[in-house]
Each structure stands twice: as C-alpha cells, then as structure tokens.
C-alpha cells in the first residue's frame, strides 16, 4: 500500500450530505474484476451528461460543466472536502478505488459511513473527520479562494491552511501507523497465526457446531488448497 505522510494539494468541494457509494461509483462499473481503472467513472452520473457504460472512451464523453470536478479551478485536486455521512450505502470498495484512481489521497468530512471509512485505510486514502462547523468554514474558504490548498501532515495529525492556521485531527493510532508505514494488514495478522489456531482449537471444543462443514465440502479436494 502507498504510504501517506505529508501532502499539499488543491481541495475540491463536494457540497452535499449523504454522498453514497452508488453515486461515487455507479453499479455498471462494478462488473470489472480488477482494482484499477475506476477513476474515469468516479461520480459518473454527476460528472457526465451522457449515460456511462463500461468500456466507453472518456475522451468521447460529454462532461457536465457544472460538476465541481469539471471546473478548471479544481483540476489536479487531491483532497476532497465533503459533508456528513460521506460514503454511505453499499460496501463497494470500488468507491475508494475510484477516488484513489482519480487522484484523491484524502477526504475531509464531518462524518463518514463506517464501511467506507474502513475501506479507505486499506487503500492509502486518508479520511479525516473534522467538526461540522470547521468543515463549513473550509467550504467557504475554498469557494472564496481559487487554487485553495491544504497541507496534511499525517504523522503530526494536522491540517495547515494557506493562512498558516494549523488544525489538528484525530485518528486511530493503529490505522495511522499502517498508513504512514504502508503496511500490509494481512501480514500483520498472520504474525498472530498461532493465537488464531489456539482460539480455533478452543472453539472447536466449546462450540463444535460452528465448524461442521456442509456435507458437500467434506473432503473435497482443492486445486489450490490451504497449507
């Protein structure tokens, strides 16, 4: 995973609450079996005037000039400023892949939906929760200042405004550690494989019904079976 330490970037404002993951990446693009290439269809229904389908050439699409990401002043934005309950709805990680593939590395909002928040950290996208009044103030500042940039310092857990104001933010220390170091969580978990096996053995005794395989899988050979 890409490390996140310090970032100075243009901020794009998405001024609506309850932005759901269906809006972030519509369902027709979820048919891909890859992790990449979703950026072209980020916010597809809002970003384009024509109806988007997989495989379309983005150069041939009709962009919606009113949509914020299509406005010249927000080109190159890597920080998204959003309202409450950002990322609600479907668990689709494609939403995070789309934001990251487009170029966003951070989303600032008063609140995030739980699954989206989790998914972000697995993909090097930093979700920052800030007080609603503060977010409101940032919206006004971004609107008033073309080229408005923020500096995010994750190790220091701060945002810095162009005026030099330093805004602290909270983040879970474990998530921060993984993001700053770019760690693979599966590797970390597998360091505790013995504890997982010990737990399993105990549970097999206590609650054996949790481990009874359906008849069809019992003894079924696997072409790529477990070690």
């Amino acid at each position, binding site marked *: 995973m890409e490390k996140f330490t310090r970032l100075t970037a243009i901020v794009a404002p998405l001024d*609506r*609450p*309850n932005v*759901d993951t*269906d*809006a972030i990446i*519509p*369902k*027709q693009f*979820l*048919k*891909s*079996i*890859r*992790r990449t290439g979703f950026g072209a269809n980020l916010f597809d*229904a809002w970003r384009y005037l024509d*109806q988007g389908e*997989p495989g379309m050439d983005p150069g041939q699409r009709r962009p919606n000039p009113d949509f914020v990401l299509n406005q010249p002043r927000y080109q190159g934005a890597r920080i998204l400023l959003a*309202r409450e*309950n950002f990322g*609600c*709805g*479907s*668990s*689709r*990680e494609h939403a995070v892949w789309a934001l990251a593939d487009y170029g966003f590395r951070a989303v600032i909002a008063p*609140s995030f*939906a*739980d*699954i989206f928040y*989790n998914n972000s950290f*697995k993909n090097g996208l930093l979700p920052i929760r800030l007080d609603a009044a503060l977010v409101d103030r940032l919206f006004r500042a971004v609107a008033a200042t073309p080229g408005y940039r923020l500096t995010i310092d994750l190790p220091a857990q701060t945002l810095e405004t162009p005026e030099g104001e330093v805004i602290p933010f909270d983040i*879970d220390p*474990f998530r921060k550690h993984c993001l700053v170091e770019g760690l693979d*969580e*599966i590797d*970390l*978990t*597998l360091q505790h494989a013995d504890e*997982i096996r010990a*737990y*399993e053995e105990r*549970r097999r005794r206590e*609650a*054996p*019904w*949790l*481990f*009874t395989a*359906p*008849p*069809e*899988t*019992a003894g079924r050979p*696997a*072409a*790529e*079976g*477990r*070690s």
Partner: protein
Amino acid sequence: MIPRHGNPRQGQEGGSGMAARTLYDKLWDAHVVRTDDNGTALLYIDRHLVHEVTSPQAFEGLRLAGRRPWRPDSVLAVPDHNVPTTDRSAGIQDPVSRLQVETLDRNCEAFGILEFTMDDPRQGIVHVIGPEEGATLPGMTVVCGDSHTSTHGAFGALAFGIGTSEVEHVLATQCLLQKKSRNLLLRVDGRLGEGVFAKDIALALIGTIGTAGGTGCTIEFGGEAIRALSMEGRMTLCNMSIEAGARAGLVAVDETTVEYLEGRPFAPRGELWDRAVADWFELHSDEDALFDREVVLDAGCLAPQVTWGTSPEMVVAVTEVVPDPAEEADPVRRSGMERALAYMDLRPGTAITDIHLDRVFIGSCTNSRIEDLRAAAAVIRGRRVAEGIRQALVVPGSGLVKAQAEAEGLDRVFRAAGFEWREPGCSMCLAMNADRLEPGERCASTSNRNFEGRQGQGGRTHLVSPTMAAAAAIAGHFVDVRTF
C-alpha cells in the same frame, strides 16, 4: 448509559459476578482472538459469504501474495448481483457480467469453496440463502463483501458487511481487525397493526434517527413487536440496519429462531443440535445490560411508510404529503431536500397517494422471502395490474423460495394479475443485470435504497413494503394498503 428493560428471558444470565452484557457484548467477547493496546481486536469469523462482485480482487490478492484460504469450509459462495432473472439456459448475455460470474466459479473451484452456481436450484441472493441453508447460525460472526450482511443478525449472529480488502483478509486469516462499536437499543413496544410490517418499522426508524443515526453502533432490536416478528420480518429489519448507518443489527434468540433453523442443511443435528440450542438461548442481552443509546418506537402508532426522496431517511407515512424544504431549518439538509425533490420530480405538499408509478419491483435481500411473496399475493389475488404500469416484477430471493411459492400457487396469482415471475437474484434492487429503470421512470420498490440512479440512471425509487408495492401495482399509484 441506559439499563435494558423488557428482557425476554430474565434471570437466566450465567457467569456470576460478571458485569451485565448486551447481546453484542457477548458475541464480541466470544470472538476476540487478541486485543492490542489501543483496543483494536482481532475478531474470529465463523462464516464468510461470498458473491461475484466484491470477491474477484480479493482472490487475486491472495494469489499475488501466494496465500490460500485459511478455512475454505467456512465459506459459501453464490452469484447473485449479475445473474439474469429471465431464462438462464443461454447463460449471461452481457460479456462483462458473464466474466465476473465465471471468475467466481473459477475461484471457488480453485480454492475448494462451496458455491451454489447459477444453475443450482439453491442459487439466490446471498442474504436469503445463508439463513435458508442454516449456514447462518446464532452466535456466529458472519461477514460478506456486501453491506446488507446485517440481515443475518436476525439470528443472534454478529453479521456485518466488509470491503474487498477485508474479504481478502478474512480469506487469508479467518479474522478481521476491528474496533468495538457502541450499543444502540431500538425497542419497539406494542403490536403492529394490520397492513404494517417489519419494513415499515425499518423505514420509520431510519426516518427517526437518520441514515447516519446508527453510525458506529450495533443496533439491537427488542421489545414486544420484535418478539412477535417471524424470522423473515426480523431479517427485513436487520437488513436495513445499514440504511440507519449501523453495520450490524441484532435480534435475540428465541423459540422463533430455533424453530426456523431446525432441520436446515447446515444446521447441527442430534446431540450437537441440543447442545447448540442450549447455548443459543444465552444469546440475549442481560437484564441490566447497559446501552449507550436507546430509541423507542410504538408499533401501534406506525402506518405504512413510503420514501419520497433519494435517501431512506426521506420517508413519511402513506397518509402524509411530500414535505416542504422551506420548513427545514438546517441549510445543508434543506438543500439536500431540494435536490432530492428535483431529482424525484415531486412538489412539496403532494399527497403520497397521488404519486403515480411506472414500474413495481417486489424482490431484493430486504423483501423477497416466502412470507413477503405470500403477503403481496394476498393483496393482488383476483385483481389486475393497472393500465399505466409498464412493468410489475416479482423476483424471488432464491430458487427454493421460488419453488415454495410455486408449490403454493403464488406464481399463478402474480401472473394472472399481470406481474412477471422471474428467476432469483438481486435484480432491480441495484440494476447490475438487465432489470432496470429507464431515465425518469418511477418505481415502487421493496428494496432498500432509493439513491439517485440506484435502480437505473435517472430512475426514481420509492421504498415500500411488499403489500404496499402490490397495492400500488393494482391502483397505479400509492394507496394505503390498510384500506385497500
């Protein structure tokens, strides 16, 4: 903190001297493998459900890292999002959808995972077949790369949706890194009136606390009205926990739970069944357990609910009118309402019963079980779909639900009324297959999300219960099913 009232099984708490715990606390405690210094726990996962949309990248990740599933026999897979609901003998026409389903088939074959393939009579929506097979059991942790995994909490299981990276994590380690949520109790007192269902409780709850009201929480549903619900009703309710922002919903185990599970293919048998049942009856919140928050609804006051906007919290009773943004004080909410009304092409003050429809969809992991189909069929029996309705669709939740409905003659009732009777799958809930709304079309839907474009770009969704959808199909507009 608020002490729990109205416990269904008082005085049965074990562990003398142990602090009173909620059902969520008990499920959590039983699955913690280890906890680090800052409270991040490694949580063991008993059942992993997999579908074709959120798993390909996880399997690819496993392969790239040279890893294998930790416990393939804990996984049950099924294609549901992309599958056609019309004749399947020719396979899937859309090559992109077909590749995704074939990729699931190949991954399950390669890693020794049980899959109900598209032509299996047990195929269906993952959240319908898990319980139907008894693959969801009380006391389990259940995850799936799908937010509506909350459905399985109806069985006193801790069940929640995860992203694809977490799907890979569970495949590789049988565990997830988690922080504990807060406990929210929704108590529904009294009894539901005639024509009012679990779906209406869910929508009324979301209307009350908002789509972010349960964020960071696990919701336990309790109270007289919940105890009176069938398992189907409890699944509908838990299913929509996520629409209230809560990753997981829970209902305590009782006789209804146990009766539903007995004899199901994955359920234990014989002596093991007896041991399991004894254990399951401990799966309820202790009498003095503390909740971080409690919300109370009176079932007797609930009317059938209809959403009018583009978020499930934009909901009113069928007897009401479309609300006026001008009366909303909060500017962010007000602009959200204005945007929603523009998208939905509705005017403030319009009576809900004056909203006319183009299509009706009865299906989805929220409302496609046998009881839902029975309730809808009872409304339409001997009646005809209104002239103005372009399509009325019934999509059973699974092959077994479909077979049961056909054995009861429900398919004939639907067909005689002018409904299309389809093969099982997610269908028009999210329109990943060929079933979708055209731009501007308005649909009464028993599904769970009315987001912009959810059922097809430009489509307009009103969420309702199965009987309300059925009645709307007959009338051509919304009607109060209680007086229909």
